[in-house]
């Protein structure tokens, strides 16, 4: 990084000031005085996929304040409590500041040169002995676009392995396969404007009030202005969201599949569908059924889509009568009828919103398909204020993991390694021989940790995530990591975590505004920020770390950049031309984010819609132009109800669901360092229904022991917390590093997406 962007800016600013003789700098000084010498910069929030804009106040090289950015269209000045405390997130007392190398049971300080030499030698040795598929990198939806891109280029284009996965496989993969199978293009058609413009909102397995608080506030705001607005919360647990919704519809875990087919059943039965929309824009397909749960190592699945007619689809729906669906789901027949009518009401602008309830699901792809079915049947899609909208959990799950394509099977911009044309295009832009990029995907996240446990993967580098707290069936994978036998684990992070404790080398990283960055949020909005402060001690950013390894492995020529971030971005941008177009880098430095496709200086609010999407021609109205194989039509899928991988029985009679709370983000490594957030919600508890507790002799605040087939844990019982468990269900948040609830979770996954189901497994509940 010969020339830092900050230096460049400073220089040009100084030059400008000089040219102006007295200089407009006075104005700045003036303002600095008013704010006590603070200098302000813009950045997206470090946490959730909402992507709120924040203003970062820096003084004497330290972050001293953060504020919700009033000029940011996402949040219009508002943040949630995590955003308000961003200024404290990077300055915890135990920041990692020096590389550490394992010597027996101790981690010993080392220089960067020693650490990187050791890492490079382990990579070389493993590749020489066991081939390129014995080394791997596991990153996340918190990777900046540059970091994800560099990692993908090094592993796929340099080392020649598809062993790259993000933790987004644990949270977004089903949304991706849902989009791909229905529209043949990832990412939503709508945007956050729909939260202000619609009047009917179905939330499915989404506790927005805690997990996407600012978006939820936009909904509540909309309702305050518009009497017609209805928020209907489908859930298996009564949350803060349910409390503020107009209607809470409790259903039995896994029966969302049946409910959505039931809703479609009524829409088709009563001819409430939009016939001309279906004729013009839809095809029908069915895939395999009884598709399994991925519980065995090396499980493989390939769907076999077959076309079907509308009549055949109607026959498929026939069994999903309101009565049958009611019996399965526990939702009254009347409610199912009412909801179907709301979905189909021509005078209502209907939106569906969902997150982990749908995605972390052994039929995650199917349930994503099924919600699109309802919108496609009714034609309520690709219109302002009327769309299905998948929400994301990480700040750049969309921008990096999905769009850059840091999955084993993917290449940038919706391309896949299995397609020769795609490999050719990638190889050309990367400047590598096409044979370098392997045509076969290797392991998705869960299988990657299984491969490490088996010893098929020897060297694993973890960046910007904490899988040894967040993986399901955790005990197996934690043990696997420390089995020896040539296994070597590198973890880059900013604090000690449950993953760094298993590492052979720990690398201290720079985070957020300690480096230049770029995230893409859930509404296709790319947001750039500049480096504002130095990282502490010797910490360095992950991008530098990856490129440093590349150099030491002899792939330095793949990264010939001077202004690394900008040049990487411009190179990546070449992939996006023709549908997922990104703007030039400079445009993002000035804007509060831009939504792709960005064509002729304009962002796109609604994809596939005439008048908004530059790729839809006049007269086409709506065109799903990315779906070339179906001639620009979206797919309505016949996907049946199939049960969860593990259901409660005599021995393990409760459903266990895991998730998040407002104050703590994911595994709590950052939010856990903020005293205010820790005080507000510091320890994971077990939410349960008071009747269940009474029956088992468990009191509020008493101890309760949960046991699954995979592990057990003791927690404090919470019978009247913010979330209220339904009878027969317990809920535990996964942020707490001292309460590894994921040891109990099953590592069953959706065979199509590979995403595990963290929401459903069977447990025994006892007084402890």
């Amino acid at each position, binding site marked *: 990084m010969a020339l830092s962007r900050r230096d460049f800016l400073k220089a040009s600013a100084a030059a400008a000031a000089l*040219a102006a003789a007295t200089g407009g700098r006075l104005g700045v000084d003036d*303002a600095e005085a008013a704010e006590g010498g603070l200098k302000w*910069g813009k950045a997206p929030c470090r946490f959730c996929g909402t992507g709120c804009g924040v203003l970062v106040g820096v003084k004497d090289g330290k972050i001293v304040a953060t*504020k919700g950015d*009033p000029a940011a269209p996402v949040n219009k000045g508002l943040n949630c409590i995590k955003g308000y405390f961003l200024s404290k997130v990077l300055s915890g007392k135990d920041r990692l500041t020096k590389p550490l190398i394992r010597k027996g049971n101790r981690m010993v300080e080392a220089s960067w040169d020693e650490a990187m030499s050791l890492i490079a030698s382990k990579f070389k040795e493993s590749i020489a002995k066991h081939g390129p598929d014995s080394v791997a990198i596991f990153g996340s939806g918190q990777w900046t676009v540059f970091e994800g891109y560099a990692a993908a280029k090094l592993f796929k284009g340099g080392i020649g392995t598809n062993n790259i996965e993000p933790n987004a496989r644990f949270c977004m993969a089903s949304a991706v396969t849902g989009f791909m199978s229905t529209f043949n293009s990832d990412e939503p058609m709508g945007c956050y404007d729909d939260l202000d413009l619609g009047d009917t909102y179905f939330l499915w397995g989404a506790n927005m009030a805690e997990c996407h608080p600012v978006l939820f506030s936009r909904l509540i705001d909309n309702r305050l202005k518009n009497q017609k607005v209805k928020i209907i919360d489908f859930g298996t647990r009564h949350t803060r969201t349910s409390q*503020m919704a107009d209607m809470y519809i409790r259903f039995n875990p896994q029966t969302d599949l049946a409910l959505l087919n039931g809703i479609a059943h009524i829409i088709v039965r009563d001819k409430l569908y939009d016939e001309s929309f279906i004729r013009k824009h839809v095809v029908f397909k069915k895939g395999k059924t009884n598709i399994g749960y991925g519980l065995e190592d090396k499980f493989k699945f390939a769907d076999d889509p077959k076309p079907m007619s509308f009549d055949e689809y109607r026959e498929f729906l026939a069994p999903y009568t309101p009565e049958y669906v009611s019996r399965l789901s526990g939702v009254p027949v009347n409610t199912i009828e009412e909801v179907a009518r709301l979905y189909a009401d021509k005078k209502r602008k209907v939106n569906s919103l969902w997150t982990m309830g749908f995605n972390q699901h052994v039929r995650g792809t199917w349930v994503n398909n099924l919600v699109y079915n309802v919108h496609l049947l009714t034609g309520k899609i690709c219109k302002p204020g009327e769309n299905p909208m998948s929400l994301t959990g990480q700040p750049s799950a969309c921008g990096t993991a999905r769009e850059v394509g840091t999955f084993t099977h993917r290449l940038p911009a919706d391309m896949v390694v299995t397609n020769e044309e795609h490999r050719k295009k990638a190889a050309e832009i990367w400047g590598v021989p096409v044979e370098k990029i392997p045509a076969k995907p290797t392991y998705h996240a869960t299988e990657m940790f299984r491969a490490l446990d088996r010893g098929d993967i020897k060297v694993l580098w973890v960046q910007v995530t904490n899988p040894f707290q967040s993986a399901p069936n955790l005990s197996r994978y934690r043990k696997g990591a420390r089995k020896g036998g040539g296994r070597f684990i590198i973890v880059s992070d900013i604090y000690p975590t449950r993953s760094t404790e298993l590492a052979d080398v720990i690398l201290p990283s720079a985070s957020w505004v300690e480096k230049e960055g770029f995230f893409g949020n859930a509404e296709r909005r790319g947001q750039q920020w500049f480096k504002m402060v130095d990282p502490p001690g010797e910490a360095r950013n992950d991008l530098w770390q990856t490129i440093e390894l590349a150099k030491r492995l002899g792939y330095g020529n793949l990264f010939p950049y001077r202004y690394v971030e900008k040049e990487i971005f411009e190179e990546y941008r070449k992939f996006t031309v023709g549908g997922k177009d990104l703007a030039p880098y400079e445009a993002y430095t000035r804007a509060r984010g831009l939504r792709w496709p960005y064509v002729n200086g304009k962002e796109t609010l609604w994809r596939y819609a005439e008048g908004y999407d530059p790729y839809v021609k006049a007269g086409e109205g709506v065109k799903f132009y990315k779906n070339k194989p179906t001639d620009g039509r979206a797919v309505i899928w016949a996907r049946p109800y199939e049960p969860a991988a593990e259901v409660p029985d005599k021995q393990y009679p409760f459903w266990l669901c895991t998730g998040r709370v407002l104050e703590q983000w994911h595994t709590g490594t950052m939010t856990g360092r903020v005293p*205010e957030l820790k005080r507000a919600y510091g320890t994971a508890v077990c939410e349960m229904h008071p009747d269940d507790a009474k029956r088992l002799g468990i009191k509020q605040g008493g101890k309760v022991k949960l046991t699954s087939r995979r592990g057990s844990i003791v927690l404090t019982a919470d019978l009247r*917390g913010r979330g209220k468990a339904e009878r027969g269900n317990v809920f535990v948040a996964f942020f707490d590093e001292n309460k590894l609830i994921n040891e109990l979770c099953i590592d069953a996954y959706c065979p199509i997406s590979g995403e595990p189901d963290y929401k459903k497994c069977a447990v025994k509940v006892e007084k402890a």
Partner: protein
Amino acid sequence: MKTTRRLLLCLLLLLSCALPVRADESEEDLEKAARMAESTPPVIPHRVEAGSSGEACLACHRDGIKGAPATPHPERLDCVQCHVQGEVKVKKSKKGKH
């Protein structure tokens, strides 16, 4: 007054400056935004029942009765999105945890 001076300076700068001034302009803009922005919301210094928000909070905080500070934004209903439980100052409640 300050604003007029700044405007004048900006104008001067624009008129006299041949070089691009992007960086300066956006710094100005960010500072302006920061002045408009709200600061960190205060934590809640008293006990709250789990699940309280919105109307329950506004009962006192809408107009500021019983010594409660009046909220500048009664239209925002998801209070606990921004205001979390802080240290409890008054020892009024007889209940234990949670």
